[in-house]
């Protein structure tokens, strides 16, 4: 009997904590972004519109699996990622629908837009090279390809190939220069590694400061985060490296960039609200909040990047169709596995 009572009472307690999600004045997000700035944005949006924002945060691939399996019953309105490749993957699996909003169209940079109109960019980041100011002459740096030069043997630092930012970079190289060139690049670069890939992007910068290597491939906003850290030692580390945008020559593709973007779920139950949120997130005020809090580049060309990242100057972006970052993803991972990039 006791068992039955415990069981029933636990079900009751359980039911009491299940929130009703029947209200219509709300919007449901599946998001890979888990930065503080996002909470701030949603709060402002709720205040301005009275629309309640509900969020589930998890890894992009896991969220795609969840969307895929939920099918028509999915409660999700928007799918937010930090990698255009995942948006392309979701679109490929028929999980997204076209977005049409003149306001968003006006808000975002034409180079960053999805050519098919299934997702929108909210911010972008560049995958840059940072170098030790003490030990590297910036004149010797030029392209990603140049990093395989023998002079950088035991000098290059980078994180694991499981990381989506590295996968996107290699996908862009496959797209721009073909599989063979990408394979050569990866296997040659591995020979120049200062140590086995590990840690996150900030750890690579710290490793330069510590003298474990001279160059690192990292995302731009991590340098912004280091320089604005509350820990003096981290600021020192951030200052000890220089920022270099690769592939800037006339014949070259430009530095690899990737967007953080939003896709509209195919069966979005609150489509109107969803479009309102996207319009809000690409608006000038929200874009300012992004760049000033998370040091990403704004997708809205009318908004100036934050002071810290503005100091590095403007650069030529690789304007490859960002969907290619998803198309060549499996190929890229295969190349990583074969080249021994752990």
């Amino acid at each position, binding site marked *: *009997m*006791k*068992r039955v009572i*415990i*069981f029933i009472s*636990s079900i009751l*307690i*359980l039911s009491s*904590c*299940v*929130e009703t*999600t029947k209200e219509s004045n709300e919007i449901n997000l599946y998001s890979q972004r*888990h*930065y*503080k700035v996002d909470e701030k944005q949603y709060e402002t949006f709720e205040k301005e519109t009275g629309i309640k924002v*509900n*969020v*589930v*945060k*998890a*890894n992009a*691939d*896991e969220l795609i*699996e*969840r969307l895929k*399996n*939920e099918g028509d*019953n*999915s*409660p999700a309105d928007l799918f937010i990622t930090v990698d255009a490749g995942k948006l392309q*993957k979701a679109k490929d699996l028929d999980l997204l629908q076209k977005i049409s909003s003149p306001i968003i169209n006006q808000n975002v940079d034409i180079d960053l837009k999805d050519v098919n109109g299934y997702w929108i960019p909210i911010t972008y980041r560049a995958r840059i090279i940072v170098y030790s100011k003490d030990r590297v002459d910036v004149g010797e740096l030029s392209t990603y390809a140049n990093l395989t030069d023998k002079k950088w043997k035991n000098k290059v630092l980078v*994180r*694991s190939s*499981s990381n*989506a930012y590295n996968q996107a970079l290699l996908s862009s190289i496959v797209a721009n220069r073909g599989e063979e060139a990408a394979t050569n690049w990866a296997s040659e670069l591995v020979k120049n590694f200062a*140590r086995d*890939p*590990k*840690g*996150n992007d*900030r*750890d690579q910068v*710290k*490793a330069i*400061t*510590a*003298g*474990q290597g001279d160059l690192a491939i990292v995302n731009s906003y991590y340098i912004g985060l280091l320089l604005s850290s*509350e*820990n003096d*030692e*981290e600021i*020192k580390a951030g200052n000890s490296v220089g920022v270099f945008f690769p592939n800037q020559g006339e014949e070259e593709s430009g530095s690899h960039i990737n967007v953080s973007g939003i896709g509209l779920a195919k069966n979005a139950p609150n489509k109107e609200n969803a479009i309102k949120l996207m319009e809000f997130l690409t608006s000038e005020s929200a874009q300012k909040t992004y760049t000033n809090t998370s040091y990403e580049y704004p997708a809205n060309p009318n908004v100036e990047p934050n002071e810290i990242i503005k100091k590095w100057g403007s650069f030529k972006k690789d304007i490859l169709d960002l969907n290619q970052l998803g198309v060549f*993803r*499996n190929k890229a*991972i*295969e190349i990583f*596995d*074969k080249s021994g990039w*752990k």
Partner: protein
Amino acid sequence: MEIIKKIVQLEHKRWIIGSSLIALFLLLPIIFLFSNIFEIEQTAFVYLWKNLLLDYSFNTFYLIAITSFFALLFGIFPAWYVSNYKFKFRVFFDIALFLPLAIPTYIMAFTYSDLLSYTGPFQSFLRNNYPDLSDIFNKDYLQIEILGIILGLALYPYVYTASRVSFSLIGSTYINMSKNLGLSSTKLFFKVIIPLSKPAIFSGLFLVIMEVLNEYGAVKYFGVNTYTTGIFRAWFSMGNENTAIQLACLLIFIVFTILFLEKLSHKKSKFYYSANSKIEKLSTPTADKYLYIYSLCSLPFILGFLIPFFYILNNSILNIKNIDFSRLIDLSLNSIQVSTISTVLIIVTALLFLYVEKISKLKFNTFISQVTSLGYVIPGAVIGLGVILLFTKIPLLNSYSLVGSFYVLIYAYVFRFLAVGKSPIKSSLEKQPESYDETAKTLGLGPFKILQRIHFPINRLALITAFIVTFVDLLKELPITLILRPFNFDTLATQTYEFAIEEMMLESSSYSLAIILIGSVMLVFLKYVINKQINAS
């Protein structure tokens, strides 16, 4: 027809059928997952074999070896000293040595790598004060060996508890006899005590190995590719379920091999010790022994708890102006609520399986009971996905949008952590002589009454132990919560992790601190329960 007849004739058939149905329900996600892949895709296997398997296998086994070594070192010796010697702070150490269990492994790993990093306090201090020394310690600490030590520190309490209980139960007869035969105390320890306690030590070590096989956050950060990181990479990054499931099968195979080997060695050398002989009075150590005792007891506690705890505490204080206390309380309540409900369900289910196993005495029920423990070796995210597949693909179940509800989240927890709740109850039930059940039966009690009036009270302490161990594990749970949680639902673990992977150690600190404090309170209480158990037997 024969089978049906047999079933009808079975004693306790309602119990057997009932528990089998529940077992089937629990196993559904895994059955569903594996039945999705009927044939082993050859190309995937060749690819895995050619490029990755060697690296994954080497890392997995090397990491298990290092972690096990340190878990045994940090677990066995202090357990022996605390069980056998009288020294100052003995009672304190007995509790303190238990506490690292309250710190999730990924927090331990992030904390130590932050502490030891170039910009961390240790190296900064040396640079500013002892520049000559700083060069020596300017090292890359993100190494598999360091990770093994960190995991050893986080997980040794499993070995400590198991050995501690076993050491205390070894009767004084053995010890006195060995001493009379002229064995030195070192020889006594290695020749008598360790062999006698082997099964107990192994049961602790087994949990350590399971945790290492399952570890994701810390191994990924350290750049160590194991079977588990391989499963994630194959499935999530490449969308290759086939490779992922092959790796998962490999993981399960390894676990069964370990269990089998243990059983084999167990059979070869079976020991009996009478637990009834008088418990040895604590002996007073010799003067030079104090040094060993204090260093071996304090080292695991200082490294495994004190340092990370104070580092996190210090970070919380530094960040105090930014702490959102109402959110901290909300998340603590979320964590406690969801862990409590799941733990209760786990204990009830575990008790049911074990009890049916006991009363039916059928091999079939033993098998069922063992299979339901499988959840503990399958990576959480794989279980999460199996559960999503189940509740979205099977007609009837998919008509309600159950994924993203607490029911499904808790269902997944129950499957994943059933083994944790089962192990203390199992060892306690096994100790009860059959005669209790027989006598009760002759007195006319039905199986439910026997459970309620005899086993429930007798095994009360084991039930409490099971409750706390499971609760603390759930408090730290991450991958299942991330993928199955409802909208706007965060736990202390998910919030800690989200900050920590962005290397925002300051922001994550207050949430990790809450996990550690809640866990520690429970564990201190548990220690009290265990000591009662030791004294009672």
